[in-house]
């Protein structure tokens, strides 16, 4: 019987250890934090670039240089900021 009890306590200790480990891995959010940091920067720039390219193409189509490129540059900037806000919201939801 002593053996059995011994086994039980050892099992309990091992299980506790496992639980602690899993909590630790959950808290180990450093990696995804860094991933998020990388994400935010490019998200902001990409929308501006895409907006400007769309403006450039439309300008060539409608012969309205340089008005549409200016307009779409600003729209792209707004879209970029909106993207960043979306990503940040998603980051907060996770926590």
């Amino acid at each position, binding site marked *: 019987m002593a053996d059995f009890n011994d086994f039980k306590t050892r099992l309990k200790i091992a299980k506790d250890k496992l639980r602690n480990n899993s909590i630790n891995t959950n808290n180990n959010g450093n990696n995804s934090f860094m991933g998020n940091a990388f994400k935010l920067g490019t998200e902001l720039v*990409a929308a501006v670039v895409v907006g400007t390219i769309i403006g450039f193409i439309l300008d060539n189509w409608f012969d309205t240089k340089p008005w549409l490129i200016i307009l779409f540059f600003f729209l792209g900037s707004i*879209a970029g900021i909106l*993207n960043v806000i979306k990503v940040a919201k998603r980051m907060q939801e996770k926590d």
Partner: protein
Amino acid sequence: MVTNPMHQFEVHRIGPEIKIAGVDLSFTNSSLFMFFSAVAICGILFLGTKEKKLIPDKFQLISEMFYNFIAKMINDTAGSKAKPYFPFIFSLFMFVLFCNMLGMLPYSFTVTSHIIITLLMAIFIFIAVTVIGFLKHGFGYLKLFVPSGVPIVLLPLITIIEIISYLSRPVSLSVRLFANMMAGHTMLKVFGGFVISLGMLGGWLPLSFSVALTGLEILVAFLQAYVFAILTCIYLNDALNLQH
């Protein structure tokens, strides 16, 4: 010439020149390292799944860890509806991860440090996600561009902004991976060049920097593969579970 930090990104031909209909299809060092990573992935997964032991050996453990990692990621970010797309995201993650990691070996070539590769993958994902969205929701998918609760006056403006933000997805996805890989490898090479030019006396500082950067680069290589896969999951989630 060897200390030129951009020299490592040059693509050159290996073997004979192959031209089909005016398109250069020769086998390059880039193709060679894509082939290497494909072989490494297939090899590890083949060895890992050859015999299913109760107590896994190293390869089985690694394969199971990869499987669990991706399965959990898809489940957490895109829900159970995304299960059929598991093979695609798994291969995508493994390919990017192995290309990044093989690029960390000395004298090797980093496939993902060329924007054409990352842009191709990103555009494929973008088109696939759009097609999936239209297949699942029909023209209701266009609701993605019309957020609810917006005044009518602002609606055209918001729609244009949403479309730009949607179109910026492949750009941000590809530029992120490419820029991180290229910047990291350039930095490693620059610090390596400092070691040589400063010699025995002053070379120790850049050498220690170089060691630290190598560790950072391995982290970045994993992280970028992870970010690439998780963003694909997020886009897939938008297409499968329409919300706004």
